[in-house]
């Protein structure tokens, strides 16, 4: 068939205009500006150690912000990530402390280090299961994501306290060195967790933009009814993003426990705020249909850099909550202004 090939390459906005209209682009500019200023104002800011620390600190948040972004794209919210982190962190600590091995497993092949992997895998599975419970209630029983995950936030935190018996876990058995290396180790000048964040940002970015699953995640958030009429399994798509959120929270939990070398049931307390802030600052729209993994990455980076800069500038750390709150509200407000301009 004959047709005008030029029409494909044409679009309302050029790629460059699209790039400029991305919130994550402006957040990147802001981040570069802050780094630029801090470089001259505060010598210690650009030291290798400080940059390493900033990158490591925002990686824990960034990983969860990636999956939170998927949840927000479907026009949902997951308030339970901080508590899931606490509970899965405790589960990991508990099993490592007990050096637990399943009966059948210890008989079939015994390596001294196997208990480490068992603890890690159990924590990850627990994260997926908690996410699946959230997702099932939201997608299949049509309950509001706000209410379900608010409930889960309380439940998971309380379970963490019950299961841990309010104890701290820090004795991780004979192979603890191997476990500590996971979150505490580094590679080519960056913490392992930072590499993991980079990997997941790219991987999930590809999934969102280049797979049918990703397209369907956007479609569900953009117009659920239309997605359903197009034959998309909207319930499964919705449930899956909460499972991913639980899974990523558990990954973050395992990594942070391994880095700190101990875990208490307070792990991840109020982290949901920082995670949601990172996603929203990075351009995820709470109305659904908009967001990306690079935004989650850069949003987390911006917040941690500002936190670090304020600390270096000698500002009382108690102000951090105030700044965090202002950022969240400002990001949502900006979003609104931008949408008004588009319409």
């Amino acid at each position, binding site marked *: 068939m004959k047709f005008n090939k030029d*029409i494909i390459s044409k679009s309302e906005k050029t790629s460059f205009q699209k790039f400029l209209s991305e919130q994550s682009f402006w957040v990147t500019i802001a981040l570069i500006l802050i780094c630029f200023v801090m470089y001259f104002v505060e010598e210690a800011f650009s030291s290798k150690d400080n940059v390493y620390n900033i990158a490591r600190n925002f990686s824990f948040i960034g990983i969860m912000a990636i999956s939170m972004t998927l949840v927000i794209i479907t026009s949902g919210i997951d308030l339970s990530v901080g508590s899931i982190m606490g509970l899965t962190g405790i589960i990991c600590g508990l099993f490592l402390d007990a050096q637990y091995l399943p009966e059948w497993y210890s008989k079939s092949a015994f390596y001294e280090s196997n208990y480490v992997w068992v603890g890690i895998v159990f924590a990850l599975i627990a994260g997926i299961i908690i996410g699946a419970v959230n997702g099932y209630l939201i997608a299949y029983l049509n309950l509001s994501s706000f209410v379900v995950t608010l409930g889960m936030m309380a439940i998971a935190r309380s379970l963490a306290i019950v299961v841990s018996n309010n104890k701290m876990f820090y004795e991780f058995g004979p192979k603890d060195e191997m476990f500590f290396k996971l979150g505490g180790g580094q590679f080519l000048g960056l913490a392992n967790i930072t590499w993991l964040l980079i990997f997941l940002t790219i991987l999930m970015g590809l999934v969102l933009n280049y797979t049918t699953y990703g397209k369907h995640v956007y479609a569900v958030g953009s117009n659920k009814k239309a997605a359903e009429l197009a034959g998309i399994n909207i319930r499964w798509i919705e449930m899956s993003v909460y499972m991913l959120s639980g899974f990523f929270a558990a990954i973050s939990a395992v990594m942070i426990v391994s880095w700190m070398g101990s875990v208490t049931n307070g792990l991840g307390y109020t982290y949901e705020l920082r995670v949601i802030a990172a996603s929203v600052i990075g351009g995820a729209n709470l109305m659904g249909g908009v967001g990306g993994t690079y935004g989650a990455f850069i949003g987390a980076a911006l917040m941690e850099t500002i936190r670090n800069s304020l600390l270096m500038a000698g500002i009382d750390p108690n102000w951090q909550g105030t700044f965090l709150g202002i950022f969240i509200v400002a990001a949502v407000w900006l979003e609104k202004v931008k949408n008004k301009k588009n319409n």
Partner: protein
Amino acid sequence: MTILSLQNIAKNFGAIQAIVDVSFNIKEAEIVGLMGDNGAGKSTLLKIIAGNFNPSSGVIKFEDQEVHFEKPIESREAGIEVVYQDLALCNHLTAAANVFLGREINKGIWPFRYLDYPSMFKKSAELFEELKSETRPKDLVMQMSGGQRQAVAIARTRLTNPKLVLMDEPTAAISVRQVVEVLDLIKRLKDNGISVLLISHRMPDIFQVCDKLVVLRRGEKVCDKLIKHSSTEEATGLITGAIDRV
């Protein structure tokens, strides 16, 4: 040849009788106009054919086979495409992504299957060209005019080679110039041998493109005749109830 045959279709929502004993046929490459006042049951009838609702009673035959569609996807697989009243498009996706929603073209083998954007852009550009629409595949639906959105919704129906296209108020809420575009699109479907059931309460649309007129009043069929044997005055009378039935 008869494509679709509705036989004594009835539908009630609890105590509401939305459709009462409606029968009519749609032939190959025939455009049937379905008219009626608000709440007459037009959308309900369309949704019964498309598989959104089950009829309370009656038989639907599609290409001489009795069919029972439980979900819209089943009617689509049989060769019936639908343009819904509210269009059912995703604003945040491109025109091409909307055309292929739920039917994306992929490349590679699992787990390395990825979207074949070039093919989808090309195919949707061809469809828009065929529909003589200026819609560009890479534009977001959010920024589009009513006419362009209609073109996207109609292009969706051309992905496969359907036998029958159902359209619910495709000319509501668009400008006059765009109405002409959409009517042209509908004629082009007919030229391709596709049958169309067109719901509209705009008299000129129906009389411009349709071969046959069916009128519903309070869920009952009060008219089923060739458009050339009818007139706008008669149609108006039938819709309002000034004329009981013909």
